[in-house]
C-alpha cells in the first residue's frame, strides 16, 4: 500500500467519503491515505500569522518523506461568482475566441479580475507554500471541482447561501466557469513556482462547457460528491505511480489488497483520519 498524506480544506471531504466507500466495499487498498482535514478544530487556524499551525507541522514531521496531496482552498472563485454580485459583472478569459457577455453586466478587464482573485487567494496560496516547505517528498495540488452548471440544483441545495440566493440569484454558469478557470490558473502558477505538481480536475467530470457533470454534483452548491472523490482517488493513485513508483509496485504485486469490511476507517485524531487503517 502506498502511504500518502492528503491535506486540504473542504474539498477533502469528497475524497474522504470516496475512500470510506472503498474501504467499506473492500477495495481501495492501493492507497494508505492519511487525511489531514484543515477545517477541523485541531488544525485551525492553519496559518498563525505567517507560520503554519504547529499541529499541522507535527503531522508532517511524523509522516516525513510521505508524498503529499493537497486540496487546499478551492472556493475563492465562489466568493466572486456563485451568486450575482449586486453590481453584476462579467469578463473574458484571454484564450476565449468568442464571448457572449452577460447582458446587463459590467465587463471588467480580465487582468483586474485576476488581480482581485489573486488577492483573495493570498492566504490559501501562502498555506500552499508552507505546506510545500514541510513536504520533503513529492507533492501536488488537486484542482478544485468545476462549478455546478444548474442554478436549480444550487437553489435546491443552497447550503449557507439560502438567504442570499432569493435576493441575488445564482450567477450565470458561464461566468462561474470562467472564474473557476481563472482560480485554477492561479493555483497552477503557484504550483509551478513552488515546484509542485498540479493535477487538473478529472476530464470526464467536466461537461462541454467546462462545468461539473451531474453525476458529480454534491448536495451543496460548491463541492463535488463522493463519485467525484472516487475519481480523484484514481488520480491520486496515478500520480503516486508517477512520482513514487516503488510503493505502487508493491501494490501491484498484490500485497495489501483485499481489505474486508472490517477494515473501515477508525482512526481519527483531531481531523486526521486514516481511512484505510483499522
Amino acid at each position, binding site marked *: 500500500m502506498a502511504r500518502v498524506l492528503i491535506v486540504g480544506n473542504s474539498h477533502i471531504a469528497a475524497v474522504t467519503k470516496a475512500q470510506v466507500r472503498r474501504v467499506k466495499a473492500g477495495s481501495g487498498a492501493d492507497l494508505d491515505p492519511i487525511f489531514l482535514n484543515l477545517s477541523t478544530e485541531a488544525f485551525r487556524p492553519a496559518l498563525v500569522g505567517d507560520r503554519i499551525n504547529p499541529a499541522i507541522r507535527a503531522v508532517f514531521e511524523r509522516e516525513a518523506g510521505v508524498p503529499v496531496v493537497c486540496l487546499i482552498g478551492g*472556493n475563492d472563485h465562489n466568493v*466572486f461568482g456563485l451568486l450575482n454580485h449586486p453590481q453584476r*459583472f462579467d469578463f473574458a478569459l484571454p484564450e476565449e475566441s468568442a464571448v457572449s457577455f452577460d447582458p446587463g453586466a459590467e465587463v471588467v*478587464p*480580465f*487582468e483586474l479580475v485576476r488581480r482581485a482573485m489573486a488577492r483573495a487567494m493570498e492566504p490559501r496560496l501562502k498555506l500552499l507554500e508552507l505546506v510545500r516547505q514541510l513536504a520533503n517528498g513529492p507533492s501536488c495540488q488537486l484542482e478544485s471541482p468545476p462549478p455546478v452548471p444548474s442554478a436549480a440544483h444550487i437553489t435546491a441545495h443552497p447550503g449557507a447561501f439560502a438567504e442570499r440566493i432569493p435576493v441575488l440569484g445564482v450567477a450565470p454558469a458561464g461566468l462561474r466557469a470562467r472564474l473557476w478557470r481563472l482560480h485554477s490558473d492561479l493555483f497552477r502558477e503557484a504550483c509551478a513556482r513552488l515546484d509542485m505538481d498540479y493535477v487538473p480536475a478529472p476530464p470526464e467530470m467536466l461537461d462541454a462547457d467546462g462545468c461539473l457533470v451531474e453525476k458529480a454534483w454534491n448536495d*451543496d452548491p460548491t463541492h463535488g460528491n463522493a463519485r467525484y472523490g472516487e475519481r480523484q482517488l484514481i488520480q491520486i493513485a496515478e500520480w503516486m505511480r508517477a512520482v513514487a513508483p516503488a510503493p505502487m509496485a508493491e501494490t501491484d504485486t498484490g500485497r495489501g489488497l483485499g481489505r474486508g469490511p472490517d477494515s473501515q476507517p477508525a482512526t481519527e485524531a483531531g481531523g486526521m483520519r486514516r481511512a484505510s487503517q483499522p
Partner: protein
Amino acid sequence: MADHPYRRAPAEAFWKGAVSGLDVFDVDPVTPPAFTIAPADRVASAGSCFAQHIARYLKTSGFDFLVTETAHPIAAPEDAEAFNYGVYTARYGNIYTPRQLLQLFQRAYGRFAPLDDAWEAGGGRWIDPFRPQIQPGGFASRAEYDADRAQHFTAVRRAFETLDVFVFTLGLTEAWRSREDGAVYPLCPGVAGGHFDPARHAFHNFTAGEIVADMVAFLDLLRSVNPRSRVILTVSPVPLVATASGRHVLTATTYSKAVLRVACEQLVGEQPDVAYFPSYELVTGPQTRGRFLAEDLRSVTEEGVANVMRLFLKHHCGIDVPRFGIEHAVPAGDAHLTAMAELVRLNCDEEALARD
C-alpha cells in the same frame, strides 16, 4: 504730477507689490472668476497629466467630483488606480490637445470612427490607440477591448451630459495624427503600442488659431448635449518631455505653452461661461524661483500642486484650505465580497466536516 491710468491701477497690477515683494504663497494672480462652483455642482476633469492633480484634489475636497466610469467594487483601490479608474471623470487617460478632446466627443457619440481602431500587441493582447496606457499590458482580448470601449463611450457621454463644470487642462500643441483620417493620438504610435509608420503618421504642431477653433467646436458640441455646462481652462505647467518640432525642447516648450495661453485668453474673451485659472503661472512664475518643480525640473511638487489647488478652491469654490490641509479618503472594500467570503467559509466548514 501728471495723471495716467496706472495711478488708479489696483495693487495686483504692479510687479513689485504683487509678485516680487511677496512670499511665494501670498502671490495670488487669480482675478475674480466669471463663475463659482457650488458644493452640489458636478465637476468633471480632463486634460494633460497635471489635470490628474486637479482631479485628485477635487475628489477629496468635499466636491461632487463626477466619476462616470468607476472600477467594479471587486477591484482593490490600488488596482483600480493602476487601471486609471477615477483618475479622471471617465477612463480616457491623458488628453493633451483640444483636437484630442474634440475627437473623444465625436467618437463617443458615433460621429467619428478612426481607421486606426485597435493595435494588436502580441500574445493576444490589444492596445487602444487613443488611450494606450489605460491599463497595464493592454486589453487581454479583442472581445474585452470592444466591450470596454463601448462602456467607456457610454461613460464619456454620461459625463458630458451630466457635468455642471468641466475643468480642462491644456497640455501640448505637439501631436501625432493619422494621415488617413486626421485622428490625433495622445502618444506617438510606437511609443506605448502600435508601430510608427511615416507614411501613415504625421507630426503636427497646433497653432493658436487651431487650438481656439478646436475648443470652440468642442464647446459647441458640449453645449448641444448640456446647455448649462461651464468650463474652466488651465494650462499645464509641465514642460514637454520631448519635442519633435526640430527646436530645442526648451524653446519648443515655451512656444507650446505660449500658444495654449494665448488660446485660453481668446476663448475666455469670446466664449460665455468659460474661465481661466492660472495653474501655469502659479507653478512656473518667477516668484517660485523653481521651488515647485522637482529635481527633473519638470514634475510639479506636491507643495506646488497644493498651492495651486488652495487658490482654486479659494476663488472658484469659496473654500479656505490651509496648506496641505486636504485629507485623502480611503475607499471602503467590497461589502458583497466580504459577506460572500464568510458564507463560503461557513458552507465549506459544513462540507468539510460532513460524513457520507
